[in-house]
């Protein structure tokens, strides 16, 4: 019977392996985590199949006939069996524990040639600072989206300005809470090009669900070009840069016909900014709590744009928004 259970379990395990349980694996750590995941899955599917098989067989085989008033066999126990089902799980969980411990050490191994990125979280935004990349005025490069070169290990130094947050990119498998007052660390080596979501997974208040950013992984050359572009943007402003900035930073939450963006979280800017002046637009960007559009909640839009954008960038953004919403014409 147990053998049948194991056989059914093995068959189910094969099926389970073909279900794409996990998203794309896009980091070295993902490979390590996934291998533990699959080992655990195979063990668990077999164990479940044994339990389900024995129950199903018992339900079928030992069903009492209608009107039956007899008892079953007076079996009180079986020392041998009890030893077996104490020992086998002990061996299995010990194996899982050892394998997990080794995998954890591998996943957290930090190569010497790593890059450091500081991750600052707040209600409800992420800010990424590159301490070894300088821009205008000797300041470190600071952005609202995470951009990294492929195949280089990164140590994230994570902190929070207010409540708990948690930094997670599902495709990288690594996650780390952000705690005010301390710096927490996690290591990732991205191995795939592309764009991945950065998600907050620790309940942080009203805007928890929309506390997202993105991680863009570039080839080393593209990354160098991106850094140069950031340096240029930090120096200059202008409506053209404003349009790029809007598409990258604002469009996921706001509708703006000119940029073709469709975000539904915040107010429709074609409506609320119609005829607005530069002062109002600037205030709405750097201090979003000052005036709240009707039907929307305070405290959802991040208040850190004054920090992550340079002065020329902010001016460029305002200039672009004036143009796009027709306010500049008046």
């Amino acid at each position, binding site marked *: 019977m147990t053998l049948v259970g194991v056989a059914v379990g093995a068959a189910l395990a094969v099926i389970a392996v073909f279900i794409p*349980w*996990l*998203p794309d694996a896009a980091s070295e750590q993902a490979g390590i*985590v996934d291998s533990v*995941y699959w080992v*655990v899955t195979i*063990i*668990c599917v077999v*164990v479940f199949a044994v339990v*389900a098989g024995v*129950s199903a067989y*018992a*339900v079928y085989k*030992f069903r009492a006939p209608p009107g*039956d008033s*007899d*008892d*079953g*066999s*007076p*079996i*009180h*126990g*079986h020392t041998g*069996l*009890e030893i077996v*089902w*104490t020992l086998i*799980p*002990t061996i299995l*969980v*010990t194996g*899982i*524990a050892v394998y*997990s*411990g080794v995998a954890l050490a591998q996943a*957290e191994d930090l190569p010497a040639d790593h890059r450091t990125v500081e991750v600052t979280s707040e209600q409800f935004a992420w800010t990424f600072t590159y301490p070894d990349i300088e821009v205008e005025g000797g300041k470190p490069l600071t952005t609202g989206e995470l951009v990294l070169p492929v195949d280089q290990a990164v140590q994230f130094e994570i902190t929070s300005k*207010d*409540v*708990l947050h*948690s930094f*997670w990119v*599902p*495709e990288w*498998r*690594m*996650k780390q*809470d952000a705690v005010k*007052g*301390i710096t927490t660390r996690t290591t990732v080596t991205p191995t795939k090009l592309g764009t991945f979501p950065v*998600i*907050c*997974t620790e*309940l942080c*208040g*009203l805007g*928890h*669900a929309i506390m997202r950013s993105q991680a863009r992984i570039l080839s080393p050359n593209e990354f160098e070009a991106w850094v140069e572009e950031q340096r240029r943007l930090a120096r200059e402003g202008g409506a053209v840069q404003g349009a790029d900035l809007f598409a990258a930073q604002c469009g996921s939450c706001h509708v703006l016909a000119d940029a073709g963006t469709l975000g*539904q979280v915040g107010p429709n800017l074609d409506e609320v900014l119609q005829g607005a002046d530069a002062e109002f637009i600037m205030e709405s960007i750097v201090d979003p709590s000052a005036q709240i559009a009707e039907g929307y*909640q305070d405290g959802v839009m991040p208040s850190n744009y004054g920090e992550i954008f340079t002065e020329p960038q902010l001016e460029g953004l305002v200039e672009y928004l004036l143009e796009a919403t027709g306010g500049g014409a008046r």
Partner: protein
Amino acid sequence: MAVDVHAPQAAEREAPHGPAPRKGLKRLTGAGWLRALWFIPLAWVLATLLVIGSRSALGYEPLWELQVLIVAWTVIVPLAFLAGLGGFDYWLYWISGRPTRPEDHSGHGARTWKDYFRVNTDHKVIGVQYLVTTIVFFVAAGLLAMFMRAELAQPGMQYVDTNTFNGLFSMHASLMIFLFIIPAFAGLGNYVIPLMIGAPDMAFPRLNALSFWLLPIAGLIMLSSYLVPEGGAFAAGWTNYVPLAVNQADGNLMFQMGVQWAGASSIMTALNFLVTIITMRAPGMTFWRMPLLVWANFATSTLVVLATPFVAGSQFFIMFDRVLHTNFFNPELGGDIIAYQHIFWFYSHPAVYIMMLPGFGIASEVISVFARKPVFGYRLMALSLMAILILGFSVWAHHMFVSGMQPWIRVPMMVTTLVIAVPTGIKVFSWLATLWEGRLHFKTPMLFALGFVSMFVIGGLSGIYLGSVPVDIHASDTYFVVAHIHYVLFGGSLFTIFAGIYYWFPKMTGRMYNEKLGKIHFWMTFVGFNVTFFPMHWVGLQGMPRRVADYAPEFGTWNLVISIASFALGASTIVFLYNMLVSWRRGPVAPANPWHALTLEWQVSSPPPIFNFDEIPQVVGSPYEYGTRGARHAILNGKPTETGRAPEPMEIIHS
């Protein structure tokens, strides 16, 4: 055993219930609802004056500080309510040297439905009070989940704003945990334990009554956070993590204070269970002859007594940070945010076992009776409960693998966490072995018990994933965790609560429930439950975080499926409630022992006599001797008791 003191005379049982009703204005001063109703506003005014008076004396501005008032109200008003009902009368008379009313047992038993709304010291009445109250909160918490699933059926925001949504899941979890699962098991235990061990009542009947009445108070405090102006209900999750809990609107205090009352209720009941089980077992009832439900409640009560003070402390610290401006969790002034999580989980992980072990006990009773076989490996079953009790205190930090605590704690906590699978596995395999060569009767309690075994195995196995640090780093705080806790607390605790309610329904009400409706309830629950919660594993691993009001559009299809299934699951509760209500009023009259069980509670009438046993039972053997012809668990002089029957159909002579 001083049981004879309680042995009722026939005349006493016929005596009119309670002291003669008071007349005229005296009705306002006698213990009861009338006195409680004017005590409440009086206490409210006094509490308000106390706060405003002391603030004005000290020169604090503003005088009307809602946070401080909430603390004063939620402490003083409930105490006044309890005093009004008469919860403290006996002790106050005793303390003040006035003559206490002699215990005439007039508070025992319930003759009309009104007796369930009084302070009653009969464990059977209290058990029913517990169960009905907790089912009310279960329905309320379930409706909150329905609202939540309605909002999550489609991406984007449709019906509520994000703050309301955060309140929905926080209230749902808090009510389900503190006002349903934990006290529902306490209610079942209250009813059944004294009967099972051959005792006339619990060790401390007045304390027992008081611990019940703390419960509706806790629930009403939590629910009334919806009435707090600005900010609405507490919305930091049932875990109430800081700093969010400290920063939140005043409604959050209602969680902190509600937990105190629910926790106090739990601790008092657990002490009562412990003393009852240790000192009031009938002659012959050695520890190794106790039914496993009694063992399970023995282990659970030990956990409650040791662990619950920690959650009380954690919520007091938050309250102090908010109201007294202490800095337990303020890192700028030396506080430690992660310390909260350690204190909280030092209770709340054992709390998982507080919510599981009584269910293990119920499953053992039900499976043994409906398989007509002794529980397989009885001693190892009892010992594995104790192993879980001990190990349960050494695993709390597995909730904190990504919290930023000292990294070295993770591996030892992973090892202890995974090792708990061993005693849990022993229990599951023993239940399966109990089925082997049995004669299975698929009554509703048995269906729920078997459903529990299979669903709990899934919950236990997904716990292995979360116990493994590397996998947990990915899966923590995602819908995978939501799936896991519902397989454990719904598939585990709730299925066994249903099994227990159906199993003891004839004993409690004296009537049979409708078997057909019971089976419909089971199948709707079983299917609805799996379609609701199984896809959450996948959704979570793919990247949907938990506690979100909105999600990436790619998860839209599965969330719609989950929502539709959850509505079917919700509808199954209507079948359950209908069955319970109608059967309680009009079901066929139940025999003393409809299941032909050997344990003591089935050897007395349904419902049992006021003092349970007309004379002390003598326990002579194991509670599970099915299959041994003539074997008895106990002898009640002059009354027939159930015996084991022949294992083979040929041997029986049908008369």
